[in-house]
């Protein structure tokens, strides 16, 4: 018989560590259907028929957060054979709150009290037998980090699953509530299975909207129940939801009083508190934060001798994908005497395209390693604590800072770093705006125009950063007013977990999971787009004959460029440069540094330096300063490279949102470039007044309106996720 055990617990309770310990490398990672919440399951070590289903880290089974809804749907609909509930022993009161809710589901529960070694070191005592007696289910002590007691607790969970040993319903509520619950229960009798009676009656009592949708009670029954609830609310002078929550905590308070003996006084400072006193100190917090960020950035993406990430990436680009891999394929292909087209496809299209992306892997791995350490140690939530004030104004959260900072190096890990943001809304918004930050690959574009048109002024590079940051802020303010973002309130009620030493296993595993998903994508989305672009760039019609072209000015890509260059005419891309600028923008989709190379090729230089010094005079002839600036703005803000688009796709995990994000970026880029070219151009006398001046003015007014209009106010605060109740 196959057994399914659900692993449930609070965030920071050591759940991930326990899951890794129980399943080892036998894990499958995916997503819960329809949402961006990660789903992990694995087989219990040493068995073939026991599956451990890791639920998201949650504090409650309320209907208000995605993670909680996903978890309860799983527990109610899929009915695992047992729940293994991990509880942080050093923070037992709040952790047991979820336990009281799990017990009401009438699925066999085993409670694993984690970090028992820390509890003992603090001099505290937890009476496990007493706890088990009070809760009515087996309770065992473990240390997930040290792997102590984990096997035993898993074996216990298997045992209760086989025996279907359901816990007694704990005696949580007072008389008034209990009598109301039993009356509700009799009203529900025909609608639900007996074993779930307590769970459903509590949920109905709480006026849980999701349950309401599911049960489809008659109006008559509904009003009867409503009357019952009202009575209790009047008697206890509180709303039903609060009554349940308060009584749960009161119940836990009594249990803890009986079963837990604390040594120190309540507010005594632990080691973690002492560290925190310095790290989030009013004066020192910001300098320390800047220092930490500086170190992370330097090691992963800087240009110094300790910048392991950059050294690795340089090696990958210059040696591995610049030398070893091409030579290897060259050797094979030459010895096989394959024809020129296939050779070009493999060498230039596949090896070149995919290699350009895989070159980032060392930087990404180092970066994720450092971020995983920060997360595991507990510093990440302090970052949110410190930065929240600033980012909240733009509809983002304190945790949005990390993705943005990382994106100054490369947008791909930046977008991927948005994973650490729990609130769905904040995460989506961060993903949509992170690409605006000028990444390392956009620097050559800035260098090219600064040198060619603006006499090497450093103001150009500075203004690029200002534009990037302004784009984030403006987008934040505009987007947060839209219904799709305003719909779900994201209360910033965040636990600041105690600091602890990072676990090598957790950190390495997290780093690898993120790194691997990047590599996998290089093999799919990026491979395909590289092939398509290679084809468009290398093929075309010469004298009415279709075939490979020598001069890529006659390629299909150039044809497309010419055809759609018109679209960019209002941005000032006119005359000889129009199609060149259009084509360069397209090749920029492979990688932004390609923009400069493309200009080199289009101006008939086979190879140019990184900032294209060779073509500066030619560029200066073709581009007026304002047109050059408009080109720069568009390329800095428009759709990012394929690698970054792939990252957006993965993090959004939803085609509609991916397209919305990329579409929004292109639109924003176009509007910005248009406004700057037409209006600034008019102001400095370079562009004459024309039809597009009026359009630009109208758009400017439109943007100002979007910035200052009152935002959408949601009517109901529950999640708008119809159909999730029944979704399997």
């Amino acid at each position, binding site marked *: 018989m196959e057994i399914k055990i659900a692993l449930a617990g609070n965030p920071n309770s050591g759940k991930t560590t326990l899951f890794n310990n129980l399943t080892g490398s036998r894990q499958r990672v995916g997503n819960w259907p329809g949402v961006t919440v990660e789903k992990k399951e694995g087989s219990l070590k040493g068995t073939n028929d026991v599956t451990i289903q890791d639920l998201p880290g949650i504090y409650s089974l309320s209907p208000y957060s995605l993670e909680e809804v996903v978890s309860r749907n799983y527990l109610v609909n899929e009915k695992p054979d047992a729940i293994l509930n991990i509880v942080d022993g050093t923070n037992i009161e*709040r952790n047991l709150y979820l336990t009281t809710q799990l017990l009401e589901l009438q699925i066999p529960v085993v409670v694993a009290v984690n970090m028992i070694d820390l509890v003992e070191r603090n001099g505290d005592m937890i009476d496990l037998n007493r706890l088990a007696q009070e809760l009515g289910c087996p309770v065992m002590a473990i240390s997930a980090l040290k792997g102590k007691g984990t096997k035993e607790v898993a074996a216990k969970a298997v045992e209760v699953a086989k025996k279907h040993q359901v816990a007694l319903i704990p005696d949580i509520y007072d008389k008034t509530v209990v009598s109301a619950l039993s009356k509700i229960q009799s009203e529900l009798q025909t609608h639900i299975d007996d074993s779930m009676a307590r769970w459903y009656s509590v949920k109905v009592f709480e006026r849980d909207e999701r349950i309401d949708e599911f049960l489809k009670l008659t109006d008559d029954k509904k009003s009867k129940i409503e009357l019952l609830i009202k009575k209790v609310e009047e008697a206890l002078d509180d709303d039903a939801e*609060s009554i349940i929550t*308060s009584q749960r905590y*009161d119940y836990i308070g009594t249990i803890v009083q009986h079963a837990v003996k604390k040594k120190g006084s309540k*507010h005594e400072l632990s080691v973690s508190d002492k560290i*925190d006193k310095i790290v*989030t100190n009013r004066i020192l917090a910001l300098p320390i934060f800047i220092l930490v960020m500086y170190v992370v950035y330097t090691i992963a993406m800087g240009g110094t001798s300790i910048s392991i990430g950059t050294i690795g990436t340089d090696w990958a680009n210059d040696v591995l994908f610049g030398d070893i891999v091409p030579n290897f394929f060259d050797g094979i292909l030459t010895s096989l005497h394959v024809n020129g087209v296939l050779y070009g496809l493999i060498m230039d299209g596949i090896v070149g395209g995919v290699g350009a992306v895989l070159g980032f892997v060392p930087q990404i791995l180092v970066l994720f390693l450092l971020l995983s350490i920060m997360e595991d140690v507990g510093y990440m939530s302090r970052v949110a604590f410190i930065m929240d004030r600033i980012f909240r104004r733009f509809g983002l959260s304190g945790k949005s800072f990390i993705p943005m900072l990382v994106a100054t190096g490369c947008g791909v890990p930046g977008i991927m770093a948005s994973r650490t943001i729990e609130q769905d809304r904040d995460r989506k918004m961060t993903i949509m705006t992170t690409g605006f930050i000028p990444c390392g690959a956009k620097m050559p574009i800035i260098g090219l125009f600064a040198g060619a048109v603006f006499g090497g002024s450093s103001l150009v590079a500075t203004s690029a950063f200002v534009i990037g940051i302004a784009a984030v802020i403006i987008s934040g303010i505009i987007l947060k007013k839209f219904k799709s973002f305003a719909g779900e309130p994201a209360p910033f*009620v965040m636990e*600041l977990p105690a600091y602890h030493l990072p676990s090598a296993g957790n950190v390495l595993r997290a780093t690898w999971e993120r790194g691997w998903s990047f590599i996998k994508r290089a093999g799919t989305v990026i491979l395909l787009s590289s092939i398509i672009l290679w084809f468009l760039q290398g093929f075309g019609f010469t004298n009415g004959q279709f075939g490979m072209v020598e001069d890529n000015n006659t390629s299909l890509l150039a044809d497309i460029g010419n055809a759609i260059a018109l679209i960019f005419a209002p941005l000032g891309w006119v005359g000889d440069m129009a199609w060149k600028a259009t084509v360069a923008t397209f090749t920029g989709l492979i990688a932004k540094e390609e923009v400069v190379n493309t200009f080199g090729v289009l101006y008939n230089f086979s190879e140019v330096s990184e900032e294209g010094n060779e073509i500066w005079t030619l560029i200066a002839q073709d581009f007026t300063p304002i047109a050059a600036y408009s080109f720069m703005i568009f390329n800095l803000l428009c759709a990012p490279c394929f690698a970054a688009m792939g990252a957006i796709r993965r993090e959004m995990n939803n085609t509609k949102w991916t397209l919305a994000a990329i579409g929004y970026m292109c639109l924003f880029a176009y509007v910005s470039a248009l406004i700057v070219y037409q209006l600034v151009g008019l102001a400095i006398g370079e562009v004459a007044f024309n039809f597009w001046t009026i359009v630009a003015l109208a758009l400017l007014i439109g943007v100002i309106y979007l910035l200052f209009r009152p935002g959408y106010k949601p009517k109901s605060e529950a999640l708008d996720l119809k159909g999730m109740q029944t979704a399997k």
Partner: protein
Amino acid sequence: MKLLKDCKPSETVVVKKITGAGATKRRIMDMGITKGVEIHIRKVAPLGDPIELNIRGYELSLRKQDAQMIEVE
């Protein structure tokens, strides 16, 4: 009547009432801020918001805007 938002660091207060409704209120209560519980205000973030509380033996951070919903004494 005093609001949690107006409490100073290192004060210890007892929750009297939680106003408001919906997701935010539920979330605050789920995290253990219920009637009668003792809250110790640890500190205020460097930029003046959010605040850090010690409650039921752990550290919780809360925006002042949300702390406005909590009446204490």
